């Protein structure tokens, strides 16, 4: 469904993404794992069409990233990206205006479940409430590919379960989810596959179950090993 081939993104002297190739399939929840500055966000932004690769290609259903892919891919950035004048209600109207797969009813229901006041200004929300708002807006789309960048950032330990359950509730076999997070233990129980990247480079990927069996470790332990210094041969 989504293919990245030898994707590279350079910024001045830094290479944020270095020769990454991926193939995302429908019906799976992927964890995109790596510490800060490993290139997760840049990769997601390239798939969302917000950043253009320096070289390599990204195609969605055989087409270059563009109007069609944007109509089917939802991307939730880590930052607050709403206009300062917008209330939660305005954000629903905005998404409804631009995305044909957006459900205003579902959005209002998610706002209610997450205890967000529709009249509240997005710019006045706490980081936790903002994270919930971004999640509500993006999960109210019936997108074929949903990418959530650090969905648990700013969410307290009590509300994390609500967020994770909301993500699971909105997943279906014809969809693909990509979740990036430092909080690997929180994701371990819901992911089908994991992709490890380090310093912009691909390190390891595969189905979560196969990785556990092959290495005899949980994804959390693999994460600790990889970013603690161990090196792994590429596993596809």
């Amino acid at each position, binding site marked *: 469904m989504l293919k990245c081939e030898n994707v590279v993104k*350079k*910024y*001045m002297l830094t290479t944020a993404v270095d020769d990454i190739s991926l193939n995302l399939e429908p019906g799976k929840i992927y964890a995109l794992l790596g510490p800060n500055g490993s290139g997760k966000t840049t990769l997601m*932004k390239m798939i*969302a*069409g*917000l*950043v*253009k690769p320096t070289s390599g290609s990204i195609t969605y259903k055989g087409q270059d990233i*563009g*109007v*069609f892919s*944007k*109509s089917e891919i939802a*991307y939730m*950035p880590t*930052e*607050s*990206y*709403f*206009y*300062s*004048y917008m209330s939660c209600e305005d954000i629903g109207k*905005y998404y409804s*205006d*631009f*995305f044909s797969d957006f459900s205003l009813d579902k959005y209002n229901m998610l706002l209610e479940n997450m205890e967000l006041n529709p009249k509240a200004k997005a710019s006045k929300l706490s980081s936790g409430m903002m994270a919930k708002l971004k999640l509500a807006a993006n999960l109210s789309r019936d997108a074929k590919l949903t990418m959530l960048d650090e969905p648990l950032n700013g969410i307290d330990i009590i509300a994390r379960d609500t967020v994770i359950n909301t993500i699971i509730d909105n997943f279906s076999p014809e969809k693909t989810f990509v979740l990036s997070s430092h909080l690997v233990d929180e994701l371990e129980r819901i992911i089908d596959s994991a992709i490890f990247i380090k310093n912009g480079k691909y390190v390891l990927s595969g189905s979560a179950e196969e990785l556990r069996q092959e290495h005899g470790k949980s994804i959390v332990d693999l994460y600790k090993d990889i970013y603690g210094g161990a090196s792994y041969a590429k596993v596809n």
Partner: protein
Amino acid sequence: MLKLTKYEFIKSRLTLIISAIIFALFEGYYLYSIITESTKHTAISTALLTFFGIASIFIVYIMAIVTYSKELSSKSSYLIFMTPNTPLNIIFSKMLSILVIGIGFIIVIATIAVLDVHLFFETYESTQNIVDFFKSFLEAMEINTAMIIPTFIVYCIEFMINFFSIVTMIYFAITLSATVLQNKPFKGFVSFALVIIFSLLMAKIEEFIPHIYEYPTNLTQSVISIVPTMAFEFLVMLACIFGTAKLLEKKVSL
């Protein structure tokens, strides 16, 4: 594109509301001066309204440039660039909103100006001879009064093409700064320098554009004589629009 335009208006509404309040205050002052027949206050309020009329052109210019520049430098740009819209649609929506706002300013200011002038001559009847003088002047210059409105419209169109050729040139420079020059030092300075160079280049080329009438003797000839310059500015505008769209499509990094 119309939906994008709708949000451009929403984003500009604060500036528009503030502008409307200032204009209403000046106009209120003018009406007060007319009611009280105070020549001193009429003079001050007329000066303020004239100043506002000139400033409104700059307000629209600044709105056009600032909204686009902010779009490429803030995270809220994700909201636009994540939507299934082509870069061309995004640029056209910004131009359309500015065009509508500009025309709105012209219509409101021109209508109220006509009414204000009418009120002025009714209040200060002794100044009626200025109108007579103006009519005699037009007759002496062999200017057909029926031609004034069409000429005014042509000059408005010329002004808009010139306005948008400059705005789109600035869009192009801002986009260059945010795309190709993104990782270069002094990108802001470079894009500013580019605008200056492009403007000077454009002015230089315009000097070489042949004049249909070297010395126009009437309004019709004056109007016809600006057509080649209008055509050139229109081409510059198109080149900047498509150049900006191409840069956004191929090089954008938000």
